[in-house]
């Protein structure tokens, strides 16, 4: 139908057309990010009571599907938003890193609750004092456990963040993590260590260099 109205003016000339609302001009970043932020695929990394609270976030009363994060997946390969829900011990650290590495790109992390964010009340030899030492975190949700509203607010904050970021920036962000994972594997094989020991080694090195993270 449309083609019939196009006046033939010459071979190389654009047709002078009024398409009204049929076409929207925009930047690539913003259209891609608009799609990304409204179709987040959450994966729960549930280790403690925050995971119980998260169940009600996904259930009908609070219903996170209203924000486009509807299809919860328990495989990192099929998800792009990891919610770390609960205490992460030092022994769990290499597993968390592996799971984050396995997730489909682009990927985001929400650290839910004080335990994941900073170790919380567990300032002990067994607990990782904040997952942001070993994986990049985008949004922190405080609380013990946070109310479902807080978790939804955290997801909304992540959506705001996704809206603003550029595509290249996100790639660099993840690449730094992959480099640290390569280093971890190198340390593991060279010194014949377990993943957990290699991470401890990297944390000690980071503390020595006065850096807050190992990636």
């Amino acid at each position, binding site marked *: 139908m449309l083609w019939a109205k196009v006046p033939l003016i010459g071979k190389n000339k654009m047709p002078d057309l009024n398409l009204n609302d049929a076409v929207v001009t925009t930047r690539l970043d913003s259209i891609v990010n608009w799609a990304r932020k409204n179709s987040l695929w959450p994966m729960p990394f549930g280790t403690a009571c925050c995971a119980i609270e998260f169940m009600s976030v996904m259930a009908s009363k609070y219903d996170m599907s209203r924000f486009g994060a509807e299809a919860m997946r328990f495989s990192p390969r099929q998800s792009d938003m990891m919610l770390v829900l609960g205490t992460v011990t030092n022994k769990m650290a290499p597993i968390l890193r592996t799971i984050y590495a396995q997730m489909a790109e682009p990927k985001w992390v929400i650290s839910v609750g004080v335990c994941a964010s900073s170790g919380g009340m567990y300032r002990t*030899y067994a607990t990782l004092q904040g997952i942001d030492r070993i994986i990049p975190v985008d949004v922190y949700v405080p609380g013990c456990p946070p109310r479902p509203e807080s978790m939804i607010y955290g997801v909304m904050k992540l959506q705001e963040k996704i809206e603003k970021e550029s595509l290249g920036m996100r790639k660099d962000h993840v690449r730094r993590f992959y480099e640290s994972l390569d280093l971890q594997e190198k340390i593991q094989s060279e010194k014949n260590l377990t993943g*957990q020991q290699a991470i401890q080694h990297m944390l*000690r090195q980071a503390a020595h260099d006065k850096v807050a993270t190992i990636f």
Partner: protein
Amino acid sequence: MSILDSLLEKKTILPILDTYRFRGDQTAIIAPSSLMTLVDLLMSEGFHFLVDITAVDWLDKSENPARFEVVYHWLNLDSQERLRVKVRLQDGESLPSLAIRFKTADWYEREVYDMFGISFEGHPNLTRLLTWSDFPGHPLRKDFPLDGGDPFCMSDSTTPFTH
């Protein structure tokens, strides 16, 4: 006759440092050297079930002559009678392992070794149970810093652990 009474009767072969009862609980305190004699006696009395092994660190408690107390709990499955045995030992002393007598002692002793650094002679595989193999120190010792000497934590609150 309760198990504590029959143990006290055999004082000649089994030196008992102290006993006490509290609301039906029976406790005997012995020296490390008499542990195996006690186990033999308990086996003959029908205490076949070793319920638990754990330890207590009494650092800087002057009323206790020894630093550590290793605590054993036995259960007589026939009479449902229980006995708690505390073995006092100094830092660096070791205990005979019960892992050959009781299968359950294997991991309990590994846990006590991991958490307190108390070694058990004759244990088939005395390695750390809960923490990783190059973990610095033994976390349930009272002089262990609570955060494990975490390099990121503030230095003024705990003393950093030197490996």
